Each structure stands twice: as structure tokens, then as C-alpha cells.
């Protein structure tokens, strides 16, 4: 619970920062462009500060939260950013092939035949959908440009 509460405080803190930055920026804009954003950002700033202050005042120490199972969310989130970076470097098809194989193995699925077939078939279907259905250029990545 404690860890969860700290993360929420961070999110509220970032909200205060973002709304404060937006509020500050509005003073450099013409009146018509600044008016509504100024009202909204001030409102969000005030509410977030109120909520954060209440949480900091009322927060008691509590035992650490136990992860229920599966991947840690932050590890998975890092994996998503890693996948994005891999798409930029190696292109969508290769990155997807590797990602679709890596996640089941990471979670503990070790039947290589299933993982390989799943990865190949899904990548092929996605590539075909991009090329022929959506007619969208497939990102080729820095390596294959």
C-alpha cells in the first residue's frame, strides 16, 4: 500500500508541475489564446495540490504491497519502451517477431514450438494487414533503411 501511495503522490506532483507550467506559459500568450487554458490549468493545479496535501497529511506507514503474480508492471512498461526502440532500430516486422517470442518466454511459457509458431503467424498477419488492408508503409528501422 505504501509503495502504491508514493506512486500516486508522484503522479499528483507531476500533475501540479504540468498544470503550473501551463498556467505560467499562458501569461506569454495573447488574451484569447490564454483565457480558457488559464482557467482550466489553475483549476487542475488547485485541485491536485489540495488532493496531494490531503494525502501527505493523512498518510500513515503501511506494509509494502505484495505483487500478485505475473510481470512487475514497471518491467513490462520498460519492455514496451524497449519494443518501441527496437522498432526504430530494426523495423516493425523484426521487432514484432522478437517481442511476440520474448513475452511468452518471459512469463514462463517454454514450449518453443508454440511460441515460434505464434510469433511467426501473428507477425505475418500484422504485416499483411498493414501492407494490404490498411495500406500503411511498414517502418523499416535504421538498420534496413
Amino acid at each position, binding site marked *: 500500500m505504501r509503495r502504491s501511495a508514493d506512486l500516486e503522490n508522484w503522479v499528483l506532483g507531476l500533475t501540479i508541475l504540468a498544470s503550473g507550467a501551463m498556467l505560467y506559459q499562458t501569461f506569454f500568450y495573447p488574451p484569447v489564446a490564454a483565457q*480558457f487554458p488559464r482557467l482550466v490549468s489553475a483549476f*487542475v493545479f488547485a485541485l491536485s495540490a489540495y488532493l496531494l496535501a490531503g494525502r501527505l497529511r493523512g498518510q500513515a506507514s503501511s506494509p509494502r504491497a505484495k505483487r500478485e503474480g*505475473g*510481470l512487475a508492471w514497471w518491467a513490462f512498461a520498460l519492455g514496451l*519502451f524497449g519494443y518501441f526502440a527496437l522498432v526504430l532500430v530494426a523495423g516493425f516486422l523484426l521487432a514484432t517477431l522478437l517481442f511476440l517470442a520474448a*513475452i511468452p518466454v518471459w512469463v514462463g511459457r517454454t514450449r518453443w514450438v508454440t511460441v515460434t509458431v505464434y510469433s511467426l503467424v*501473428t507477425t505475418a498477419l500484422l504485416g499483411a494487414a498493414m501492407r494490404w488492408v490498411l495500406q*500503411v508503409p511498414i*517502418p523499416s528501422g535504421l538498420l534496413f533503411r
Partner: protein
Amino acid sequence: MWLQGFLVALSPYNLLFLVLGTLYGLFIGALPGVGPTFGVASMLPLTYALPTDTAIIFLCAIHAATAYGDSIASILLNTPGGAGSVAACWDGHPLARQGKAGMALGISTGGALFGGLVGWVSLVLISPLLVTLALMIGPVEYTVVALLALSLLAVAAQGETIKGLILGGMGLMVSFIGPDPVNGFMRFTCGLMYLEDTINIIPVTLGLFALAQAIKLATEGGGAIAEVFSAADRVIDGVKEAFRRPLTLIRSGIIGILLGIMPALGISTANIVAYLVEKRSSREQETFGKGNAAGLLAPETAKSACVVGDLVPTFTLGIPGSATTALFLAALMLHGITPGPEFFQKGVLPYAVFCGILLAQVTFFFFGLVLARYFAKVIRIPNSLLVPSIVTLCFLGAYAQRNEIYDVLLMIFFGVLGYILQRRGYPVACIVLGLVLGQMLEGNFHRALIIGDGKLSVFLTEPISAVLLLVLVLSLASPYLGPLWRRLRRSPAKEA
């Protein structure tokens, strides 16, 4: 016009997407914990390439089928498929435990068909009245109606009103990035060209609803399902059982329509209210929770009626009734159509869409009747295979609309943010509503100020606006009024 609308809706292309949307919706609906919002959000990028009528019909088919398919996990696994199927667990799963899973699915199917048809009738009858009302209101009233929709969604977040308001404000803040709607002055871009084109709604919605859900499924460590009941008995018997209870059908249908039309009160409220009303009206209250057919029929009927009723304020006023209908709004805006009176002036389009919605109800009924027991097998797909597929589908969806790789990065950011916020009870739907309404709200706000000579008091001097503002203030205060009233009543009693 209705005949032309039917002919357009029955075109082979539209029928193809009607069927595809229904099958996809049933597949997504059968997955535990994944609801209509995910189903619609995941296919929203695809609709950009489709004609407007096909796009809306496709999304309506997904919406209706996912909401219906949500009951499969509720009945077989005692795990709600979505927020709208919570009450289906209470009598649906006990029926499955008694070896009547097929009958339970049939009751759900029959109730969903009736609810969907009744909801459609209300859509057709009430829409013209609301459009007439919409033509009578101007920028001042529109500004307050949009603020009211945002506040109602925040209030409906069950005790997390302040969090809902913060997120609604965040959504509005995100909508401010880029050119302002009045003069086109570039704002909050930090010198980045990517931000000069306004924030694209598709990566945001994909991230908040689809990717966040994938993160949740990945971290739940699922895969092995201990006990699943198979639907070996006949689904059609359940449909017949549903239609033997006309009073339950009508009562629940009306509840669903009323809650659907009101912004922010969606299927999550409708199914529970209908269940409680049915239980209170029954002469066999003690059998509720133990496999009472009416206890399953009522929430399923109300849910389907609400799904269609939700579309009424979306199409007529341009005010989404829920997060899912906010996505419909986004789909219309992607095709250059402003929902509201303008939508009803687009020739045969509104009629084709309404006919498509009617066909969607019949289509999911047919496929549900024939294929429900097969779609039930979907719940056995392990998360280790499901999650990467959802992630790559989201990548595809975020990239496909603008061929902009940084839309994918935006989606990941909102996906992680959405996951963190949802785990801590924040209603992320408010972000989407703020983002969708932002530009319209700001434009109307400025027009309202022009009408009022630059004074904010114009929102109080216009009578309709003043009444709506009073409703807004009361709705925001309502979570606190109850406890305050109870405290005031207790104080005189104590003194005595």
C-alpha cells in the same frame, strides 16, 4: 429516407463490416476484464480508412456485441467481462454451476436482443426531439452542457469526484496543445513540430483503454483457469425462457434507456439498478443470487438498452454519454462530422447509421445463438499469448492513422499512465472526455464571451445556462450533501 437508409446499411460492404464487427466484439467480450471500451478503442484507428457510415456501423456492431459477449465470462467464470456485466455474475454463474450454462447464455442473448431493440426504438423516437432542443441552444448553453457532462462523469466515479475532475481537466489541458480553435495561435508545443498538429486522440484512447488493459493482464499472472463450466445444454432454451418474462423485459428495458440517455450513467449503473429493481419486484426474492432466471435477464436487458440509449446524447447533442460513446464522437470527428444537429443534416447518413444499429442488434443475437458456446472457449487463451497480441495490435492502430511513429510513443506513455491511474481508482474515462470535448468547449466558451461582451456573467444571465449551472453545482455537491444532511439530522436528535 428510411428505405434509402436501409438499402445503404444492407450494402454488401456494410454487411461485411457488420459481421466482422460482431465477431470481433464477441471475441473481445468473451475475454474476462476486457469490455466495450477496449473493443471500440482497438478498432477506432481502422475506421479512418472506411466511409463514415461503414465506420459507425462497424463500431456500433463491436459495441453491441462486446457488451453482450461480456456476459460469457460472467456466467462461466464468475468474473465480470466488463463493468456492465457485474450483475450477470450474481445469478448467471449459479445457473452455470447447476449445469445450465447454455440456458444462462440463452437468457442473456434473449434479454440482450429485446433490450437492444427497445433501445433502438428510443433512439429513433427521442433523437428528433433532442435535435430540436439542440437547435434552440447556443454557445452559452453548449459550454455549460459540456462542463455538465464532464462533471457528471466525475461524480459517477463512485466517491472519486475530485480525481475525476482533475483527470477531466487534464484531458482539456491535452486538447489545448497545438493551434487554438479561435485564431490558430500555436500553444504549448515546446518547439516540437509533432505537437503542432494537436494531440491525436487515437493513441491516447488506445493507450488509456487498450494498452493499460494489456499491462493489467500481463501483471495479473493469469493463464490457468481453475473451473470453467461448459455450455453443453441448449442456448435456445434460455432464449425461450427470456421471452416468457415480458414484464421483466419491459421494466429492465425502460431502466436501461433512461440511464443510457443521461450522460455519465452508463451500463455499469444500468445492470446493477435493473437487478435491484427486479429483485425488489419479485415474489421470490430469496431465490435471487441462487440462479434465478429473472435475476440474469433484468441486468442483461437493461445493459443492451443502455448501450443503444447511450448513443442518443452522442448523436443529437454531441455530448458523449460514456467513455465508449466518446470514441464514437472521435470517430465522427475523424470523418469531419460534428455530432449534433449537423449530423442529422447529412442526407441519408443518419438513417443508414440508425438502420445499421438495428441490424447490429439482430446480428449479435444470431451469432450469439449459434456461436456463444464456441466463443466461450476464448476464455482459455492464456494471457502470455493474448497480451503480446494486444500490444502489437495497439502499436499498429497508433501508427496506422498518420504513419507517425511518435504516436506510438504517445500511446505507450498514456498506456502506462492509464494503468497507474486505474489501479489507484482514477476514472480515466474523464481524460478522454476532456480531450474529445476540449476544442468544442473552448470554441463555444469564446463565442459565449463575445455574446456577453467579454463578461463571464453571461453564463448566469442566460436562463437555460443558469439552470444547467445549478444542476452542475448540485451534482458536484451531491456526494457531500448526503453525509451533511445525516449529520444535521443527528445533531438535533442528540440534543434532545
